[in-house]
């Protein structure tokens, strides 16, 4: 019996076991390298953007960059007022959020508190299809369906305008807002819900006075995700919002966002090191700066939520 066991189980110092342990170690190292490569990617993105954007400031002073009245880097008398592009970006983002935040929140409350499990299982994937449609298709929709529709209401709406791009973008990010908010609401412990209902509160009162406040950090991080989506969205604004950077908050006129500027310039001939090449990296760095700020806010809120519910 003893000798039999000795043959079926390898000794710790046997070659077979050594080989196996080595193999385990190699696999662990390979897997670690794969996981760590994502850090390299982030580093690569930030480093490349900064490296390519830096020479821009050898030619243009920071003062011009921040205070010029217009953004016309490719014209005869170039002006580099970045706020023209930032203004367009925030204008379309604000329009998108004024659609996505109310509608997304209502949808989340409705799906989480008013729908039975069965209907929710069907409706949620369908709603998420909104986020699966390619953005270039949304651009087509904004330019050739929504704008003509809006022109029937405001006849002097220009055919490229911030309004229709923003509205379509808003519908596009409804699922981002609603899915995360709904997850947060459903993570609220059932006893809170039952306690409120047992005190005689209606479903609506429970939703808005108990569920939403308790899930607020989750909902807020959903909003933040929506904001960073809207800031970085490219094709809808490049197709439907026009190509005229300007400091104006009029949604009926055309405008240009940071992303749309990058697309416009990249379409043409773009030699390495030309002023056009440098400006798209500057626009990219500014965009990355804003989205990273919002991402970090979102992460902070989310980790607070995790502590709260532990």
């Amino acid at each position, binding site marked *: 019996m003893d000798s039999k066991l000795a043959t079926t189980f390898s000794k710790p110092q046997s070659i077979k076991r050594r080989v196996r342990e080595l193999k385990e170690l190699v696999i662990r190292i390979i897997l670690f390298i794969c996981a760590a490569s*994502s850090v390299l990617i982030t580093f690569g993105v930030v480093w490349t953007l900064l490296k390519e954007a830096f020479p821009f400031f050898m030619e243009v002073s920071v003062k011009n960059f921040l205070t010029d009245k217009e953004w016309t880097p490719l014209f005869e008398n170039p002006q580099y007022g970045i706020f023209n592009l930032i203004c367009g970006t925030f204008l379309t983002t604000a329009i998108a959020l004024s659609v996505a935040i109310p509608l997304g929140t*209502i*949808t989340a409350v409705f799906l989480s508190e*008013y729908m039975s499990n069965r209907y929710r299982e069907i409706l949620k994937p369908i*709603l998420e299809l*909104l986020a699966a449609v390619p953005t270039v298709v949304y651009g087509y929709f904004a330019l050739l369906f929504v704008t003509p529709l809006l022109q029937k209401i405001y006849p002097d709406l220009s055919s490229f305008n911030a309004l229709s791009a923003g509205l379509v973008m808003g519908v596009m990010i409804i699922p981002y807002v609603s899915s995360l908010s709904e997850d947060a609401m459903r993570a609220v412990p059932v006893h809170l819900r039952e306690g409120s209902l047992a005190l005689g509160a209606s479903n609506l009162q429970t939703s808005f006075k108990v569920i939403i406040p308790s899930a607020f950090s989750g909902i807020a991080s959903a909003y933040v995700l929506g904001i960073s989506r809207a800031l970085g969205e490219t094709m809808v604004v490049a197709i439907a919002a026009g190509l005229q950077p300007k400091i104006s908050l009029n949604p009926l006129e055309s405008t240009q966002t940071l992303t749309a500027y990058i697309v416009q310039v990249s379409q043409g001939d773009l030699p390495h090191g030309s002023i056009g090449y440098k400006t798209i990296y500057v626009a990219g760095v500014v*965009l*990355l700066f804003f989205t990273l700020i919002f991402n970090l806010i979102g992460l902070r809120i989310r980790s607070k939520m995790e502590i709260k519910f532990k």
Partner: protein
Amino acid sequence: MKQQVEKLKRQDSVFWIVGLLTLAFALITLLSLIVDMAMTGWPRISSEFFMNFPSRFPEKAGILSAWVGSLCVVFVTAFLAIPLGIASGVYLEEYSKKNIWTKIIEVNILNLAGIPSITYGLMALGFFVYHLKLGQSIITAGMTLGLLVLPIIIVTTREAIRTIPAHIREASYSLGATKWQTTWNHILPYSSGGILTGVVIALSRAIGETAPLITVGALTFIAFLPTAPVMATPPYVSAQWLLDPYTVMPIQMFNWVSRPQEEFHVNAAAAGLVLLSMTLILNATAIFIRYRFRKKYKW
């Protein structure tokens, strides 16, 4: 008292209607997008449309180079992102210890998922196109999109692995299996449904992505196909196609949308219809896989 109860009930039913209308608004928007595109684009859909190259004459233009290009690019994307993504997900769930490095990697992946897609394009232009001198080629595009969808695959792999209860692992270890044997023989097969869902969603995202490819300089007028990967004479296989210029479906569509002529908008609608069908079919597949596997494994 009774009045107040009545009032609350009334408010509740008003919100019910508001909720239903909101949901209906979102779904009607989706529906009108599909219907509008189908009505405009359907007459252009024919076998010639799939087999013709782009052209200056809208009625002769087709999407042959675009859909072939899309397939090639997505192939490279899948080849890069699937192994890398699954390996990272497995490491983070099964191997990593809770320490500062793991925390950094996790925060970093969440951050990557939040970076606008166009910044990946800028990175690829500076690094792949000019630094590695890969040019405006299929491999550049595939790698760019591969990095872009990597976080999606990592996150879904982790979620899929997390649903496997600890006793499965413990049973495997108690029989003397090593960590990798447990992972390979148990964890990966049981989570394959969730992982596959993530992969399909990532690829559908890659097919529809436009902005980063415009930045790396995808051309819009390509009247030839990439070099065939197999040929009749030695050495029989060739990787030349990886370095060929290309165009993809969404870029072709963007090109047609941006033209002023009405006829090209019809082409754009037809291309959009094809693109939309591809992504919706992929997403439906993902939902179906998720549903099947949820039924198969009940812990």
